[in-house]
């Protein structure tokens, strides 16, 4: 592999990885607080992509407005899903909420099939995104640079919210101990709704960039990235935002590099993440940066 090729693959890996990371943050935040694998998250990602491109092509909104509207409304969808499908199950056994999440995931996916049809749609990218930038021998699409930068900015915003605001303090408190937080006057349900909103907004942002990077829309487009992002969150240590970012970036880079070095293994690409997941769960179930969650007797 030449040096230029290596850099190109690495950058592609970082791009893919930052998209995984944005989704993984949503999984990890919800898991940290509710101990729930939010299966519907991958459908939130998919809806984000659809909303923007329908805004642009059907209602002829300018790009910026479409993106903002999509992200805001997707945050609303996330909050709604929590309110309708998860909140009534807070006191139920954890698996009930998980089954509900699987139900919501299939529901949203099939609503998308009904509304948008199962036929994949091509995404028309703005022309300026098609100009190839040449840096030495490395050929880059503007998105390869733009995606990591935008993702990084979004993550900075998130870190600010979680570590510098009162709502963020609430989130951290709830993830330590939900009942004590409640008795201490933390508005638990509001904070959880906010968590779903923020996680969904990040997933929507990721979905939009994903659709620009790999220009095709289909109702099942969220399933595989969703699983992989969840795996990234587990690998990084579920419940930890830094872990989700590191896990996401790592998974993206490993995936691209593995396929680039061993092209004959390309067919196994989708299995790689799952093998990694099972390995991590067996060797170090808390992930790279996760805290040990106590089993309550």
């Amino acid at each position, binding site marked *: 592999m030449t040096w230029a090729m290596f850099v190109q693959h690495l950058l592609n890996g970082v791009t893919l990885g930052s998209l995984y990371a944005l989704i993984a943050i949503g999984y990890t935040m919800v898991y940290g607080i509710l101990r729930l694998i939010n299966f519907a998250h991958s459908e939130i990602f998919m809806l984000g992509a659809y909303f923007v491109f329908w805004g642009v092509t059907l209602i002829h909104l300018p790009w910026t407005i479409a993106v903002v509207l999509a992200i805001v409304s997707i945050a609303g969808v996330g909050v709604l899903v929590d309110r309708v499908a998860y909140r009534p199950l807070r006191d139920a056994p954890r698996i009930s909420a998980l089954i509900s999440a*699987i139900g919501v995931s*299939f529901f949203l*996916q*099939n609503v998308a099939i009904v509304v948008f049809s199962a036929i994949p749609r091509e995404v028309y990218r703005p022309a300026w995104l098609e100009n190839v930038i040449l840096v030495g021998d490395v050929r880059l699409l503007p998105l390869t640079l733009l995606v990591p930068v935008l993702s990084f900015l979004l993550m900075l915003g998130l870190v600010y919210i979680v570590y510098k605001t009162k709502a963020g303090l609430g989130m951290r408190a709830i993830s330590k101990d939900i009942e004590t937080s409640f008795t201490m006057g933390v508005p638990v349900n509001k904070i959880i709704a906010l968590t779903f909103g923020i996680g969904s907004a990040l997933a929507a942002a990721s979905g939009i960039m994903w659709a620009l990077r790999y220009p095709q829309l289909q109702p099942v487009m969220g399933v595989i990235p969703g699983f992989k992002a969840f795996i990234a969150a587990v690998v990084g240590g579920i419940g930890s935002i830094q872990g989700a970012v590191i896990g996401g970036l790592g998974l993206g880079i490993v995936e691209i590099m593995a396929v680039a070095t061993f092209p004959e293994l390309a*067919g196994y690409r989708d299995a790689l993440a799952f093998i990694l997941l099972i390995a991590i769960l067996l060797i170090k179930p808390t992930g790279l940066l996760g805290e040990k969650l106590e089993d309550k007797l």
Partner: protein
Amino acid sequence: MTENRIKIALNFAATGILALFLWWAQDFLGGYSIQILNLIAVNIILAVSLNLIYGFTGMFSLGHAGFMAIGAYACSILIMTPGQKEMLFILQPAYPWVQNAQAPFLVAVIAGGVLAALVGLLVGAPLLRLGDDYLGIATLGFAEIVRVLANNIPRITNGALGFKGIPDYANIWWNFGWCLFTLYVIYRLINSNFGNTLMAIRDDEPAAKAMGINVFRYKLLSFTIGSFFAGIGGALLASLVSTIDPKMFLFTLTFNVLMIVVTGGLGSITGSVLASIAITILLEWLRFVENPIFLGDYELKGIPGMRMVVFSLALIIIILFRREGLMGMREFGWGRLLGLVHKRGEAK
């Protein structure tokens, strides 16, 4: 007669009535209705096996589609003739042992089940240490890995093309025979000491451990038996629908089985049976919303995807408002029926 004898007699009577019904059905019902009956039998096998793993032992497994795929592929390879396989493997020729392997249907189905059970044993041994949702996601990962493998070993599975024209040996007699066998085995298991142990583990694992139960061993056994019947179900399904490919074994398949188990009630065999019947019929019946309907000259367009919208919504509603499902953990048995009769008698 003692109550036990009455129950045994009733069981035989019920089996006889079922046999008579099937005998009548195969002569008088159309091919489509018979296909639905067949699907019901296979779904009962799948649902009861998942119920053993999840409902009775409390292991949240999402790997059913993987075990079904293993059973389906193993059985199909064994029942197709070498000539058929030669025509089928157009991408790359099959390995000689795949090419030449052949067995009667009964042996092929059992082979599918045994292979699935072996894989269940191998996969379960490391994975069953994980709890709750981690077990779910890891078994889901296992099922995905099976699917990716099926796509990538074309000399055994014919890759993405899969198999076509699998001999349709799975008639109603085979399917219902296997279905009754599954029900009998799992019913006997559940109502034995073994079953009590499983339910003790489900209800309170640390307590079960403290009582000296080798939790891991029982979990692994339950998981392996569940995988065996999932493999059997997959094998029958392959012969029933006569076409398989890796896409058939997506997570959706596991979702359908999970849906039946949750609807019927976790930890209720009769619940799973009732839910299998109801959901299989409903799923087929709902096909009409997906197909175009012709009213004279007008054509109402079908709505693809509507079936699963209805079903996922139903699952959410059940889990929100009636978490215990149709039957909860209760069983509908002769004992209750007899009790009802006795009460009536006393009232008179």
